[in-house]
């Protein structure tokens, strides 16, 4: 059997990934729990749980509700804060032989700056700026739903760090391509999308929302076609590379997302039903690259031939 592992390598925004498959922020913690299933070194990278300036408690439970083909979450960025992350999680992660992406958020522009500045002094490989968390009252999504907000946060983070900067976009907008352009114009090295879609689930017996937060972010297979469409629109709108996610649960989904324009992909909710999902996706993509005689899987990126209108 031929070894197709090397066909999956990709340079994304100046960072070398051994393959394009990355567990998504918030679904994988800091990786420790999944080491029980496979060595983290098989992964292309890890996008770690969203980190803020100070420790955050998160929202009241229940924080999760199952929906048809998906799930809502309202975790609300529970995390131990940037100093704890840098001191206690990052050194460990950096020994794992994979690309480590910090996912950052804040209530104010100043908080984003503070976190980005602190990370700039570490050996983190990349920073993903979350301007799209629908689960926190202040900041978060508020920045991600307007071009001005996206531009402001990108600019502030850009000034704070030389690290490769990837801005994570919200799907809860009218025109996601405009937001992507705003981030690109302020110096983002890449964009990632989609974060979760704002949703709601009501228990018809109690007539109350399942989530204590009333609303939460939808992810999982249910959002996949929306994510593919948005990745396609964004990759046609910007020159910087795109990281695609939203509902990917198998290698076929990953291939589809790449054909829509994503150079690398992230896997979130699929991990809950199948912790092996990222590994199975990597294997599937390797076989696909081999079976189709590709020199490198990147040949399929953006290869969708759309119908002329």
């Amino acid at each position: 059997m031929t070894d197709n592992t090397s066909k999956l390598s990709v340079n994304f925004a100046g960072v070398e990934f051994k393959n394009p498959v990355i567990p998504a922020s918030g679904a994988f913690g800091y990786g420790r729990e999944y080491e029980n299933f496979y060595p983290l070194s098989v992964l292309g990278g890890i996008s770690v749980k969203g980190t803020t300036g100070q420790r955050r408690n998160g929202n009241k439970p229940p924080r999760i509700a199952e929906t048809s083909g998906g799930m809502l979450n309202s975790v609300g960025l529970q995390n131990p804060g940037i100093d704890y992350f840098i001191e206690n999680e990052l050194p460990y992660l950096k020994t794992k032989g994979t690309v480590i992406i910090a996912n950052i958020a804040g209530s104010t522009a100043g908080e984003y700056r503070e976190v980005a500045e602190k990370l700039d002094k570490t050996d983190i490989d990349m920073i993903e700026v979350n301007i799209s968390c629908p689960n926190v009252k202040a900041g978060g999504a508020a920045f991600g739903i307007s071009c001005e907000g996206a531009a402001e946060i990108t600019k502030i983070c850009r000034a704070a760090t030389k690290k490769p900067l990837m801005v994570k976009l919200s799907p809860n907008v009218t025109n996601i391509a405009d937001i992507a352009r705003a981030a690109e114009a302020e110096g983002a090295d890449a964009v990632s999308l989609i974060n979760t879609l704002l949703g709601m689930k009501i228990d018809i017996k109690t007539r109350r929302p399942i989530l204590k937060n009333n609303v939460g972010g939808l992810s999982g297979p249910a959002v996949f076609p929306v994510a593919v469409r948005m990745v396609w629109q964004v990759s046609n709108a910007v020159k910087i590379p795109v990281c695609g996610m939203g509902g990917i649960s198998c290698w076929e989904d990953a291939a589809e997302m790449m054909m829509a324009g994503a150079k690398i992909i992230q896997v979130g909710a699929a991990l809950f039903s199948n912790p092996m999902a990222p590994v199975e996706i990597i294997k599937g993509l390797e076989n696909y690259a081999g079976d189709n005689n590709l020199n490198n899987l990147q040949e399929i990126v953006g290869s969708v031939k759309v119908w002329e209108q």
Partner: protein
Amino acid sequence: MKYVMGQYPVISKSNLAKDIYDLTVLCPEAAETAVPGQFINIKAEGFMLRRPVSIAGIDRENGTLRIIFEVRGKGTKEIARLNSGDMIDIIAPLGGRGFDTQSYETAVIIGGGIGTPPMLPVAEKFGKNAAVICGFRNASAVILQDDFNKTGAETILCTDDGSAGRKGFVTDALDDVLKLKKPDIIYACGPKPMLEKTAETASQNGIPCQVSLEERMGCGVGACLVCACKSIRDGQEIYAHVCKDGPVFNSGEVLFDD
């Protein structure tokens, strides 16, 4: 915490009461390390999220785990379709903290409704050194009394309507038991109000108490942070996570108001 994931054979199935099923799963790797209070996360065909169900029996010799669950919604209905000989997709054993059965000699063990099954392996550890109090809605919901009797423990059955055993709540029976003798520890699993009352009684009597909590879960392993429960650690209010920090907690750590 060390766990396995895979498809394992169901080697027996029975129906204990209306909508309550008892499965034995052959999974030597998990049976080897499982402790009372831990749970397994079951894939229900066609559903995104796995269903957490407590371990109701650990048989190291035969490499089996026993689970007992009630059909509540669509996922458990799907799992209830599995028969002996079918494969069940599980991650097991989960839970960073089970019941600490090592540090105590005598115990009162309390189970309410579908919270009763996880107390069986605890009762087995204590044998005649335990009193077991089980509470159910009515006679038709009563399960596992033979199993508990076999452990050698003194068993007290309560039903809300008095249709079997004594009428009233398990916490009333607990008060009576404590009047006679104070155990080293109280263990409990069941509805939150029952746990809260039990915790209160335990603290009034100065008896340590461990309770097993439930919360809706995503990953089941401690990564996604959805299964939050408010607790006190080092004097600070925090959200602990049922799947990793629990599901068993010292009752003093739990803030029931949330």
